[in-house]
């Protein structure tokens, strides 16, 4: 039996019953990203426009002549959900000001995978965050270019085997550490940045609700388990996400007004091996490499705790 920490029993019954991301979409069986999107939309409600980058979610959800979306939705290309989102936001602002549309706030939410956020879409994201558009950007990070067949991205964790840096006799998979995108975006003067995971659904939805209320840019980084790409049995999708948090590999925190807060803080971190051993993409790792990963995870986690303890918010420093 699985222990679900930080999960209030019966909380799911309080969640909005409306399905904004409807069944019938063509995502893989057990897709963590589809689940994450479904949860995000419940937290956003109907006064939302979704801007979607090319990727798994766009491809599986809107296959002409059908759509899974019960929200206004636009997809243009791969690297540009952030800039299309900026355009939608500007238009809605101007049209509302000119009295051409109803006078109520519609939130623009731009979404993309790790490819469309860390790599090819990075420039557009940086520009939109820097210009201060009232756009929430949510990255659904399944740690590789999954839609094109599991290729390495800047979000792929160290040691993972992907189709463009596979493990073999002469290689141990990816040698570089994962890009810390939350830190990068936080440096863009963005008032709210958070990490989340679908395995902690209430935590994720609360963060989405919080970000929705920000009048300005906000960013949520959601770890999305891909059983297909991570080589995990489909039923262990939620478990894999949970282990990522419990081992400290993917800590859940918020950076609000420059202040760091842990939102899910395991009392004691589990060894990373617990997380790595259930995934086929790490099965080639030697004990030495796993040690290397453990050391780095500890270091990164301690650095994060250091920030949580010692960094003050902008308001605190001002006043």
């Amino acid at each position, binding site marked *: 039996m699985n222990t679900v920490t930080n999960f209030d029993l019966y909380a799911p019954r309080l969640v909005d019953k409306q399905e904004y991301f409807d069944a019938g979409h063509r995502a893989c069986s057990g897709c963590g990203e589809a689940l994450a999107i479904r949860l995000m939309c419940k937290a956003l409600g109907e006064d939302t426009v979704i801007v979607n980058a090319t990727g798994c979610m766009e491809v599986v959800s809107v296959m002409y002549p059908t759509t899974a979306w019960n929200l206004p939705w636009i997809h243009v290309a791969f690297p540009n959900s952030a800039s299309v989102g900026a355009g939608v936001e500007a238009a809605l602002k101007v049209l509302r000001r000119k009295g051409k549309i109803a006078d109520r706030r*519609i939130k623009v939410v731009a979404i993309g995978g790790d490819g469309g956020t860390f790599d090819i879409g990075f420039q557009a994201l940086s520009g939109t965050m820097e210009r201060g558009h009232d756009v929430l950007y949510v990255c659904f990070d399944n740690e590789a270019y999954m839609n094109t067949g599991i290729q390495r991205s800047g979000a792929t964790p160290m040691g993972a085997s992907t189709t463009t840096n596979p493990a073999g006799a002469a290689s141990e998979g990816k040698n570089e550490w994962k890009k810390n995108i939350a830190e990068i975006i936080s440096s863009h003067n963005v008032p709210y940045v958070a990490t989340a995971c679908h395995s902690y659904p209430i935590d994720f939805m609360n963060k989405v609700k919080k970000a929705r209320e920000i009048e300005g840019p906000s960013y949520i980084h959601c770890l999305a388990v891909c059983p297909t790409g991570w080589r995990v049995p489909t039923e262990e999708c939620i478990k894999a996400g949970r282990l990522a948090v419990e081992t400290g590999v993917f800590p859940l925190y918020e950076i609000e007004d420059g202040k760091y807060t842990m939102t899910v803080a395991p009392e004691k971190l589990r060894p990373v091996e617990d997380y790595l051993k259930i995934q086929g993409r790490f099965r080639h790792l030697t004990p030495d490499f796993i040690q290397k990963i453990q050391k780095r995870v500890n270091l990164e986690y301690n650095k994060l705790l250091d920030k949580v303890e010692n960094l003050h918010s902008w308001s605190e420093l001002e006043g």
Partner: protein
Amino acid sequence: MSKRIGMEIALAAAEAVALCKPDVVAAYPITPNTHIPEHLSDIVAEGRIDTDFICVESEHSALSACCGASGAGARAFTATSSQGLLYMAEIVPIVSSMRLPIVMAIGNRALSGPINIWNDHSDIMSQRDVGWISMFAADGQETIDMMIQAFKIAEHRDVMLPVNVNLDGFQLTHVVEPMFLPDQKEVDRFLPPYKPYAALHPDNVVSMGSLAMPDIFNEAMQSKDAALINSKQVILEVWKEWEERFGRKYEPIGAYRMDGAEVALMTLGSMGDTAEVAIDELRDKGVKAGLLKLKLWRPFPTEELFKAVKGLKSLVVLDRAVSFGGVNGPVAAEVKAALYDQKERPVVTNRIIGLGGRDVAVGDFMAMVEEATGAQKKKPAKAYEIYGVRGS
């Protein structure tokens, strides 16, 4: 009442766009079109128009932001040239497929390699087959007029396609000319506020930008082609209305001294104005020469071409871009393809001139006409030739 102005054509283009009251402008600077977005941002800063000017971080984001804005029901505009156009090229065919009526001004500039900031048509010719309506302005007045016409054409319910207005970089963008700028009331009567076919808003839920399987893609492409072909009807209607309101006539192919002409030049853009002087001088010498100024590039005006070349013995098509390793320059290839099945058609010769801002003088045009006719019957050995290359 239109007022007579004397200003740099790029600034006039911005004034014309401002008269159309765009809701969102997203542009990135690139020589030689920079003055267009700059002046627009001046107009916004002065409070003359209520527009959101997004200083995007690249041309790709410029056109992407315009897509988002247009998708949300706003009137959107951008401007670019050359490398900028190529950077947004990923989005260019998507805009027409999504039927978003974005208007773009292109200050035509040579494509890089080696880098060259001066005028030729290689940038727009690289975007020939993307499904946008494409017009070429030959001078400042046409620039102003076409900018305003573009919005009306694009947003027409029977069109719903993006439009690009091409003006030669430096040759037009940085040149000061006397022009008539319509006043706000006249433009308001001509161009009503934008009523989108569909808009991103929860009150009317729509998904834009779907995936099309092979089972449906061919039908989608047929639909796109039909939209562009059928738009010509609306373009002609809008031009007729423009003539009634403003007194200036626009046709897909403008004719200059074509009466009884036996040989004609065909030009796009500002080179046509210089060519007019050459035609005058040739006529003075007794040569039955005329000039065809192509204003509508896409949808290609095939019927108008047939009418225009009736009775011509010789047509010299002047391209301002090379189709490397191809049979002809882009315009000549199109003209020849159109005329292929006609029983009677002129002999078409093709010269590629003025690449990368190289000056083409009156004398050059005259020489090209003389070469094509009896005066110096020198038929080029190749189907096309880049004119004036030293060493060839």
